[in-house]
């Protein structure tokens, strides 16, 4: 049933697929690296790696550090997760701004806070990039002091820090 000719044809179809895949991925603006960053101990997982092991100053990569910032006060924590997740529990004083509803809600945020308001975004930890997206959007909207707490709500909760 599957004879030599079929095997040749399969090989042709596979070659076309792989070739096309590499070509499109290379030229597409949404293409990804050939090897991603999928180790949560190295930071937030993502299909496109940071490239070099450069420090990311905007990332807060320990829960204790996030707590220090929280204790200093004056910092606005912004929850990038869905409204439901936010209502189930969030960092005390945090406001909800689901990254998917950014466009509808950014106006009121801009009205309430000055652009130099220190902001820390967070989401569901290192398997989640939403806090990074939100931080990017906030910077684009004009906020100048935005950082990302990469361990997010699960990391915070696991340490037994207060939630509301």
């Amino acid at each position: 049933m599957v004879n030599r000719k079929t095997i040749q044809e399969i090989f042709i179809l596979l070659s076309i697929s792989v070739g096309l895949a590499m070509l499109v991925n290379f030229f597409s603006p949404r293409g990804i690296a050939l090897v991603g960053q999928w180790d949560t101990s190295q930071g937030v997982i993502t299909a496109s790696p940071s490239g070099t092991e450069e420090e990311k100053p905007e990332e807060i990569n320990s829960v204790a550090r996030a707590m220090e910032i929280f204790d200093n006060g004056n910092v606005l924590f912004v929850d990038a997760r869905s409204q439901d997740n936010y209502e189930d529990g969030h960092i005390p004083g945090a406001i909800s701004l689901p990254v998917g509803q950014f466009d509808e809600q950014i106006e009121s945020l801009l009205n309430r806070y000055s652009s130099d308001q220190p902001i820390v975004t967070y989401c569901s930890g290192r398997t989640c990039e939403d806090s990074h997206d939100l931080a990017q959007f906030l910077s684009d909207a004009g906020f100048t002091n935005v950082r990302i707490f990469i361990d997010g709500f699960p990391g915070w909760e696991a340490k037994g820090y207060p939630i509301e």
Partner: protein
Amino acid sequence: MCGFSSTASRAGKRKGTRLSNLRQSIGNNSWIELTARWILGLTFIYASAYKIVSPADFAKIVYGYGLFPTGLINLIAIIIPFLELVGGLALLLGFYPRSAAVIINALLLAFITVLSINLIRGHEFDCGCFSAGQSGYFSSPKVAVLREMIYFILGLQVILFGGIRRISIKSLRR
């Protein structure tokens, strides 16, 4: 005793012939082949679209299965959608249809295996991410396994079909 058993075996043979006739008439019905091929082709072209547009999201889904070495996740996420697209197009147009069906069925077998392993070990990945939650990617894994098994049977029909295929680039040349 002897007579009885020979009657029984003759009856069995007749039944066997009828069954194999039925199998042949389904297996070699060119309209069924065309339907199976087009359903599979359109389904896989459709399924590839979102993954091709959002490879990073698809890579995260691949990661979420928790079965692949981290070095291969991106490559899997880059290549699988194009196997689906090229396989689907080939089925739709009847270009190397049998070979395309072999590729599609290999993919289906892989999907079924991955989903079943995670069903059995009760592994469900939820990154709590907004994008993944919104894309509505997952139906229930059980439903998905069942659906892919049906597709697999359609694929077998296309592979085993022995007649002249309707509306097919390659069958015109034969």
